[in-house]
């Protein structure tokens, strides 16, 4: 038996559920992870990533020394360097001076608009707060964003528009209080596994009825009362038809509509076209099932909606989310325990990174950057001269790269993100990355994006730093170091403070204050200006965390939002039209490709593909329905080529009824068969979120030797 030297309680670095982990450490090596059975979010349950997927911390390919590229890189000709022989190991002083010299040179030459930064939904609140502060305070730009743009931007814009707040209105554990709940665009069992357990418990032990609206026959369908298998990208007609049924059958909660909403009359007119029969025609979902779903949701005592990226990752992602919001407004299923509008946030700290102002339109606390009063607050906090901060809205994640050209973005700082996997239409992304004049990567591995960098700054993973994460139900929880950083790597917050001081010295600015000795001081600085976090201290969240808004030091937290009113006052109905996806299937490209994730992997794979998780699921697969497979002569396990107008990948096929006829599915974790080579970079006009969930592809049989790794084959009973 191994006796641990210590057991460190912290928060899981993977998804937005925010499970409590206990890291069992022996000789500065985590050999086991457990979770306390009284943990507030997960009650001792974990998924494969949380319990076993931490070993990337010790992977031999992890970078623990600062690196500078041997071959100087030029804009337009930038190349990728994965091999260490292409890099020179340098001291932190040399690395940070090189970064500071180049960033300041470009800033002084090309101005604020040439500077941009990707913050990181994996990093802590403190790390994100500092990085956006560095770019706003030192380079006077709002070109600050992170991967929230690629996941829930549609939901965030819709909720801001209709409600005035963009987080989950209720906590995930309140699913146990639901009588009826809708899960849509979320493969919860694989992407929020612990929330899926609670959903199953709600059905099996508390008599709740679940309605799944999803083009795939996901695991949750086995527990559902009703499954509406819609064609990808037809959310607006399906949910608007449900709204029409609720109105026509007089199931409307008039008290709520009259007292809490506005814009109903105009909305009613826009609803006329969305008959269940019209919805059936475009979505393939039987009109009668749409009626039944509407009745179940509207007549339930408590009903809630949980949604994922199947709603937001569309060129009309904002409209999709609004269609859901309307259902809650019509029925009043929001503002009480056991109801709500609940976008399940993907990353462990995407909620927190957004709260910290790692976004181009907002300071921390969702304060608009174009509002001079907000600007004045942060100028005071950061010791900036009056009128010094920029009022100009920044560029979004997707726009930052598409503006990487002469006269546009020249220098990019990437903390922990991997656009070379996560952006749509990767061949174009590659071209954009090549145009940068200077690129810094701060990460733990040289991933597909970091390989383009001039300087690589080795940061620490969650197990080697202190801070906080804010989970999907707005619970701010502690992150604690289990052991010292490996090699010469440093926690992100320390790297950023050290770098900011060097930049300030070169700019000759008065200091915006970077002399923190512990991350708690960083949270305090932010919380002093951001009322949602005002009452949160490390001492108060030492044991179980607090659910913000926490306006004062004695406030207990706010699990349920909007009980009295919405942040914008009345909830706003927004008339909608049906806009099809930008690229519909045709004779040449007859399949709809939809992308998503797997239980065993995480996003671009930087962490999970350097883990035993990769042994559990080592290759990309495309799911194709048996009826389609038969027509194309494809058997289970056969190599196939999937091609779109933008690119192609070769991978094995999984012939399964988990997908529907005419729809193929590829998870986007695998660089050797990157789904995002195929996806369409069409954007939602408001949210700027790309259409990851639908593009047109063709599928051809391929040869075994065309596979990137012919000798690797996943063999799992559950797929």
């Amino acid at each position, binding site marked *: 038996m191994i006796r641990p030297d210590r057991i460190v309680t912290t928060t899981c670095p993977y998804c937005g559920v925010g499970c409590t982990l206990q890291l069992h450490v022996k000789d500065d090596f985590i050999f086991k992870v457990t979770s306390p059975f009284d943990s507030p979010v997960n009650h001792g349950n*974990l998924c494969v990533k949380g319990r*076993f997927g931490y070993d990337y911390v010790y*992977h031999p390919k992890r970078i623990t020394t600062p690196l500078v590229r041997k071959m100087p890189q030029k804009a337009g000709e930038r190349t990728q360097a994965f091999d260490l022989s292409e890099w020179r190991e340098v001291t932190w002083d040399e690395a940070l001076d090189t970064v500071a010299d180049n960033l300041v040179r470009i800033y002084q030459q090309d101005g604020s608009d040439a500077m941009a930064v990707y913050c990181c939904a994996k990093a802590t609140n403190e790390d994100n707060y500092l990085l956006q502060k560095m770019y706003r305070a030192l380079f006077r730009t709002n070109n600050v964003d992170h991967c929230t743009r690629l996941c829930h931007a549609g939901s965030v814009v819709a909720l801001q528009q209709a409600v005035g707040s963009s987080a989950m209105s209720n906590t995930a554990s309140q699913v146990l209080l639901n009588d009826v709940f809708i899960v849509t665009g979320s493969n919860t069992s694989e992407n929020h596994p612990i929330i899926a357990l609670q959903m199953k418990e709600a059905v099996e032990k508390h008599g709740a009825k679940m309605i799944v609206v999803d083009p795939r026959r996901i695991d949750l369908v086995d527990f559902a009362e009703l499954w509406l298998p819609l064609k990808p990208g037809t959310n607006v007609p399906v949910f608007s038809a449900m709204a029409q049924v609720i109105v026509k059958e007089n199931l409307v909660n008039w008290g709520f509509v009259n007292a809490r909403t506005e814009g109903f009359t105009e909305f009613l007119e826009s609803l006329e076209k969305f008959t269940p029969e019209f919805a059936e025609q475009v979505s393939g979902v039987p009109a009668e099932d749409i009626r039944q779903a509407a009745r179940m949701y509207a007549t339930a005592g408590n009903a809630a909606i949980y949604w994922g990226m199947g709603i937001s990752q569309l060129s009309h992602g904002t409209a999709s989310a609004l269609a859901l919001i309307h259902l809650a407004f019509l029925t009043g299923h929001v503002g009480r325990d056991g109801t709500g509008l609940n976008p399940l946030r993907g990353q462990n700290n995407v909620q927190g990174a957004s709260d910290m102002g790692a976004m181009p339109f907002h300071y921390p606390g969702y304060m608009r950057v174009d509002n001079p009063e907000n600007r004045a607050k942060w100028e005071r906090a950061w010791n900036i001269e009056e009128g010094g901060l920029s009022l100009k809205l920044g560029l979004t994640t997707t726009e930052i790269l598409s503006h990487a050209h002469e006269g546009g973005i020249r220098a990019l700082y990437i903390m922990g993100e991997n656009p070379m996997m996560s952006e749509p239409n990767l061949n174009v992304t590659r071209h954009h990355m090549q145009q940068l004049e200077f690129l810094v990567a701060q990460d733990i591995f040289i991933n597909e994006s970091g390989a383009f960098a001039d300087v690589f700054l080795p940061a620490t993973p969650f197990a080697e730093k202190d801070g906080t994460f804010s989970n999907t139900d707005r619970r701010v929880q502690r992150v604690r170091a289990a052991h010292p950083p490996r090699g010469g790597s440093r926690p992100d917050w320390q790297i950023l403070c050290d770098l900011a001081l060097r930049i300030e010295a070169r700019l000759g600015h008065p200091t915006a204050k970077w002399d923190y000795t512990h991350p708690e001081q960083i949270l305090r600085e932010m919380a002093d200006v951001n009322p949602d976090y005002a009452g949160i201290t490390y001492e108060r969240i030492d044991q179980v965390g607090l659910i913000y808004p926490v306006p004062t030091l004695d406030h207990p937290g706010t699990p349920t939002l909007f009980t009295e009113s919405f942040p914008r006052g009345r909830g706003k109905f927004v008339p909608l039209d049906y806009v099809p996806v930008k690229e519909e299937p045709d004779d040449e490209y007859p399949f709809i490709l939809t992308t998503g994730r797997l239980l065993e992997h995480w996003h671009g794979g930087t962490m999970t593909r350097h883990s035993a998780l990769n042994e559990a699921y080592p290759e990309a697969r495309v799911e194709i329905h048996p009826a389609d497979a038969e027509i194309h002569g494809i058997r289970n396990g056969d190599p196939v080529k999937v091609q779109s107008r933008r690119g192609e990948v070769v991978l094995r096929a999984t012939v399964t009824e988990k997908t529907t006829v005419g729809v193929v599915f590829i998870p986007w974790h695998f660089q050797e068969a990157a789904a995002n080579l195929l996806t369409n970079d069409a954007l939602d006009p408001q949210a700027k979120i790309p259409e990851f969930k639908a593009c047109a592809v063709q599928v051809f049989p391929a040869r075994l030797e065309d596979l990137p*790794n012919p000798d690797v084959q996943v063999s799992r009973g559950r797929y």
Partner: protein
Amino acid sequence: MTSKLLMDDKEISVEQGQTLLEAARENGMDIPTICFHEATTSNALCRICVVEVEGMRLLQPACIVQAADGMKVQTKSERVVRARRTILEMLAATMDLSDAPEILTLMDEYGARVDRFPEAERRESALKDDNPMYVRDYSKCLLCWRCVQVCADDAQYTFAINFSGRGYETQIGTFFDRAIPETTCVLCGQCVGVCPTGALKPKREYLLEQGMSPQEISVMNTGRKRRKQK
């Protein structure tokens, strides 16, 4: 509604529906448990928690018997202690308790002898190492059911493992004895989290025990060629 009962001659009051075990623990009395776990359904399998209830012929498992008004309960009578000691001695005679420090402590407390049943056939089986995340050593399994239950509707709703065999041959296993990756298992490790005897163990913990260094463990499984040059 509260009821009153006598436990070890002390009057205690309990809420309706509470088990004798809950009642005892709330009142600071110690009843040992092995198969009981606060996060799983109790099935009274190991019987280490038995108590004597006046008027009942057999010893009663405190983890499932509900407290009732007027009950008279002895939690450490001679009969109870003898039963617990015998259970511990039977466990020690048939399984490997080396990874179950709490049970070993109980054996000391109850004066249980490891060699009480020298003729007993030990329940031995080969280590199962069939997936990247955890190993299964059923020589250390006492059939507490916790792993089966968390895999089923106590937590995970995955139903990957169950009993196989009957009577003394009973063992936890997968359907048709398939390797874990071939089953519905999602590798969540809920089972590992509730195992009381180290029969289920994270792979890395196991390798460390086998004498591998953290360094050696970290370079395992990393030989796979990840990137194909175009």
